C-alpha cells in the first residue's frame, strides 16, 4: 500500500507513539536511585570532564568555554543517542511486527521522541551553566527551541533510514559507531571552527549538525540572532533529511517481514 495510506495510519496511531515514549521514559530510570535527576547530572558531569581535559591539554581561546561545551554536547549527544536507539527499533520489535499491523515508522519515531524528551530535561543543565557563568540574559534566547526542532526532524530522518537498513544489513549497526565518531570530530563541539584550516572548515559548515549547533550557541552564548541564511540552511537540511528518511523508510518497510 502507498505512502499516503501509511501516513494516514501513522496519524491514526499517533497515540501509540505517545504510549511508547511514556514506556521508554518510565523504564529509563526505573530502579535507579536518582531517577530523572540523572538527565540533569549527566551532562554536567560530562561537561566537567571535557572542561578539565581540554583546558589542560589543548587550550582554545573561547569565551565562556563551559557553556560553549555544553551547548554543543547537548545537541550532539541527543543526535547520537536517538539515532543509535532508533537503529534497533525495528529489529527489537520484530516479534510484534510479525503479529499485528502497526505503521512501522512508529517505532523509530517513538525512540527519537523519547530521547528528545530527556534532552529537554538536560536543557536545565544548560540553564544552570548559564546562571553560574553569569551570562547576560536576552529576550532572543527564547528562540532556543527553534534549532532544537530542526534537530528533531534531522534525527528522525536519520533514525528512520538506520532502522530500515539495520533490518537487512546488520553491518550497519557496527559501521554506525565509527561513523558517529567521525561525525563527532567533524563537528566543532569542543574546539572552535577557527581552529581548523579554512579548506576543511568550508566542509564543516555544510555539516547540518554544526549548522544547528551554531544557531543554538549564538542564541545561548551571546543572545545574538544569527542571519537568515544560517536559519534557512539548517531548516532546509533538516527537512530534506526528514523527507529523505521517510521516503527511504517507506521503500524499505515492505521487505521487513521477510527479514525479521
Amino acid at each position, binding site marked *: *500500500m502507498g505512502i499516503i495510506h501509511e501516513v494516514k495510519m501513522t496519524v*491514526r*496511531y499517533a*497515540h*501509540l507513539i*505517545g*504510549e*511508547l515514549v511514556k*514506556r521508554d521514559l*518510565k*523504564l529509563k530510570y*526505573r530502579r535507579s536511585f536518582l531517577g530523572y535527576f540523572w538527565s540533569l547530572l549527566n551532562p554536567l558531569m560530562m561537561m566537567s570532564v571535557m572542561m578539565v581535559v581540554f583546558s589542560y591539554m589543548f587550550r582554545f581561546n573561547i569565551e565562556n568555554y563551559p557553556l560553549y561545551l555544553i551547548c554543543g554536547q547537548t545537541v550532539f549527544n541527543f543526535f547520537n543517542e536517538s539515532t543509535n536507539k532508533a537503529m534497533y527499533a525495528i529489529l527489537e520489535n520484530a*516479534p*510484534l*511486527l*510479525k*503479529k*499485528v*499491523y*502497526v505503521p512501522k515508522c512508529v517505532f523509530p519515531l517513538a525512540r527519537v521522541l523519547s530521547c528528545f524528551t530527556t534532552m529537554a530535561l538536560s536543557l536545565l543543565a544548560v540553564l544552570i551553566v548559564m546562571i553560574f557563568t553569569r551570562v547576560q540574559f536576552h529576550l532572543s534566547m527564547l528562540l532556543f527551541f527553534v534549532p532544537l526542532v530542526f534537530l528533531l526532524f534531522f534525527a528522525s530522518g536519520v533514525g528512520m533510514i538506520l532502522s530500515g537498513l539495520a533490518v537487512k*544489513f*546488520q*553491518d*550497519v549497526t557496527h559501521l554506525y559507531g565509527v561513523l558517529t565518531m567521525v561525525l563527532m570530530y567533524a563537528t566543532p563541539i569542543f574546539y572552535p571552527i577557527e581552529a581548523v584550516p579554512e579548506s576543511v572548515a568550508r566542509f564543516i559548515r555544510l555539516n547540518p549538525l554544526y549548522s544547528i549547533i551554531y544557531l543554538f550557541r549564538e542564541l545561548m552564548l551571546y543572545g545574538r540572532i544569527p542571519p537568515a541564511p544560517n536559519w534557512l540552511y539548517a531548516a532546509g537540511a533538516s527537512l530534506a533529511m526528514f523527507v529523505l528518511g521517510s521516503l527511504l523508510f517507506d521503500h524499505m518497510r*515492505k521487505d521487513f*517481514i*521477510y527479514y525479521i
Partner: protein
Amino acid sequence: MSNMIEANNVSMHFIMEQERTNTLKEYMVKLVRRKLRFSRFTALDNVSFNIQRGESVALIGQNGSGKSTMLKIIAGVMDATEGSVRVNGSIAPLIELGAGFDPDLTGRENVYLNGALLGHKHRYMQENYDEIVSYAELEQFIDVPVRSYSSGMIARLGFSIATHVQADILVVDEVLAVGDYNFQRKCNQRMSRMLKEGKTLLFVSHDTKLVKRLCKRAIWLDHGHLMADGPAREVCDAYREWMKGQEQ
C-alpha cells in the same frame, strides 16, 4: 449479510535467496558477480473465500499449509503477491499471548500499551480497564512487573485485553493451548458470547475437535491450495481421512 473478509485469488510467493546474504559486503560481491540467485516458494496458490459477518470460520491444515501466511495477510502484516484481501471492519488479533507485553512494565501499564498497539486510545482503555483486569483475575498482581507473571497469568491478561476491545473480527491463532482447563473453558465461553454478539471469528488450528466445537465452517488448506471449504464437521472429517491416507 455483508462480507467481512474477502480473499480474491490470493497468491503468496516468497523469494528465497539461495544462500542468505546477511552482510553488505557479501551482497555487493554477489550483486557485482550477478550471483544473487533466488528461488521461489509458493505459500498460497490462488486462494479465494468470503467470510460473512457473524460467521465462525476455522483455517485448518498441516504445518506449512499456508494457514499462518493467510492469517498474516488478513491481519495486514504482509501484502499478498497477487490477488487481494479486503477486510471490512477492525481486527483484534489474539497475538501469541503476550507478544506485545513489555516485561519491565507492570500489568497496568501493559494494558494501556497493548491497547495502543491494537489501535485503541488511552481513554477507551480506561473505560474498559476494570473489566479487563477482573476478567483476567489479576487484581492483586496488576501493579507488579509482567516479568514476574506466570505464563498462565500472561495468557489471561492477553486474552482479556484482546477480547474486551471493540473489534468486528477476532483472529485466534492456536493460542488457546496454553492455560489450564479453567482458562480454556473461560476462553471458549467468551468466544461463544462474542459470536452471539455478531462478531466474526477466524480460528486457526489443527485440532479438529476444537474446531468442530467452536466453528460452523472450516477452510482446509494444503501446501497453499484450497482443498475444501464447507461445514466444519464435513471438512474436518475429510481432513482426518486424508491425513490417515497420507500416513499409510
